[in-house]
């Protein structure tokens, strides 16, 4: 045996230097990412916050009281936003999961066209479509009500859900189903006990983000809701310029589901999953 290894003189300082640099970079990055949230939060608990005070001279829960009070209809709007997002999620799952299965597992003639059709609404901006949709919806009485808004939210959410599921199914080996069938499971039992457990995490993550996409829609709701359907983003926008304290409090409410979703799904969410690809839309 030789003597105990001597630490290398040249190595330690250099490693520390690089680590420090890295941490400086990381902290700078996170600071930039968090920065816009800071004034929102401070506004939400401020009472008097005049220029040039860096922090409010008085704090209060006034903004939060206003959020709860019925006069501003925040609770109603939250309920309506949730209802629309839930409806939209259910529809997207019901339609998107089968379509995703077809795209993920099968090759067929015209697949390319269907893929373009699914991808297009994700890339084409909502505004370019919604003006035309508005013209149609007015004619069929779908303008200015929840049903119409839910339907128009399907334009971004359904393709998203389909895309996520097609990714999930593409990674799923159908041989599991054949194996189950040969072991005596029927069609239904195979789906129930073999396929569903395999794709379930994907469905959940997709559904959670579908919810968020609908939850954060602004311009689609603005046009199709026609002032009759008041969701959180509509309220938030209205307060943004006039009532910073209320806008701050509303923003906090508005971002909570997203944080929750991220906490729930971060285990499944990596950038190569289709789940991320579509959330440029939130």
């Amino acid at each position, binding site marked *: 045996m030789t003597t105990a290894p001597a630490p290398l003189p040249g190595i330690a300082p250099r490693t520390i230097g690089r680590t420090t640099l890295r941490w400086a970079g990381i902290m700078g990055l996170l600071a930039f990412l968090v920065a816009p949230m*800071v004034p929102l939060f401070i506004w939400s608990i401020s009472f008097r916050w005049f220029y040039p005070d860096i922090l409010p001279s008085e704090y209060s829960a006034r903004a939060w009281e206003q959020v709860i009070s019925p006069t501003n209809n925040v609770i109603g709007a939250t309920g309506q936003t949730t209802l629309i997002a839930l409806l939209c999620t259910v529809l997207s799952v019901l339609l998107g999961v089968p379509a995703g299965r077809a795209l993920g597992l099968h090759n067929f003639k015209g697949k390319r066209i269907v893929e373009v059709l699914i991808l297009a609404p994700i890339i084409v901006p909502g505004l*370019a479509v919604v003006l035309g949709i508005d013209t149609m919806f007015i004619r069929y009485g779908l303008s200015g009500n929840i049903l119409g808004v839910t339907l128009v939210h399907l334009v971004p959410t359904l393709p998203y859900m389909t895309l996520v599921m097609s990714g999930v199914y593409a990674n799923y080996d159908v041989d599991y189903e054949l194996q189950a069938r040969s072991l005596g499971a029927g069609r239904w039992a195979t789906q129930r006990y073999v396929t569903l457990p395999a794709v379930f995490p994907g469905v959940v993550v997709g559904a959670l983000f579908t919810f968020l996409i609908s939850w954060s829609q602004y311009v689609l709701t603005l046009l199709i809701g026609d002032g009759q359907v008041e969701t959180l983003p509509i309220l938030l926008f209205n307060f943004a310029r006039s009532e910073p304290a209320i806008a701050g409090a509303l923003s906090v409410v508005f971002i909570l589901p997203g944080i929750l979703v991220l906490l729930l799904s971060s285990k499944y969410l990596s950038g190569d999953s289709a789940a*991320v690809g579509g959330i440029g839309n*939130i």
Partner: protein
Amino acid sequence: MNRFRLSERGAERLSISVLLAPAVAVIVLLFLGGLASGFLRSLNYFPLIGLNDFNFDAYFAIFTDNGFLQSLVLTFHIAFTSTLIASILAVASALLLRPAFRGKRIVHFFFSLNLTIPHLVGAIGVLYLFQNSGLVSRIMTGLDIIQRPADFPAMVFDPWAIGIIIQYVWKEIPFIGVIVLAILLSVGEDYESVARSLGANRWQAFRQVTLPLIMPGVVSASVIVFAFTFGAFEIPYLLGRTFPAALPVLAYQSYTDVDLAARPQAMAMAMVIAFISTLLIMAYMKLSRVYIRE
């Protein structure tokens, strides 16, 4: 045997149609239907009010209108600048966050956090940070760098759309970054190690090996970002000037104009936005096909 095969395949085709039909029907109806109805309207075709003829008046009108052209240029500037800055910073961030360090999971969580924060909230945050009497201006006053709100350089409602670009960069760094980071983590560092071992220096290894590996991800994410920043409405509506306004804002203003004659022009603008994003989809498909083949 042969007949059995055929019927089997027939059954498969049937089941594919059954699986696809509802979703495709909804998308065709809403998306393509919306586009088609917008297109017809942009051609001044609107039988409901007795307009039964096509013409290109709306397109002539907008393309000869200086305001529209300025909007178009501004919108390209916003989309291009935001996408470029966001992509570069996202790649840098991903490289920064790649190696193992203590607290990596928490840092990654915070990094991906604003994937879920709606653009609208980010835009309001940017507004409260960078308006003349915003938090940054206050801090600078506190540090005696400026004396009055008016001394603060215009960063929202400004001609260069700085606030809009800041908001997009803020929101899209994590979006592109998470995609790039996932690629980096799944490929590992061994390719770069091989390159270094074969005689590439740090920069060469990045340029020749890392970059080509992440490029497909960067490009496809950038296309999505470009399309979004080109067509998003609420951010320029909140942070931008009224003249020239970004194209989607201009389209919205024309659509809600009291003068109903402006509507076909609004539709024509929507079609321009749709057309440009269609070009992007084609680019996206082409690029993804090129990369998938490798």
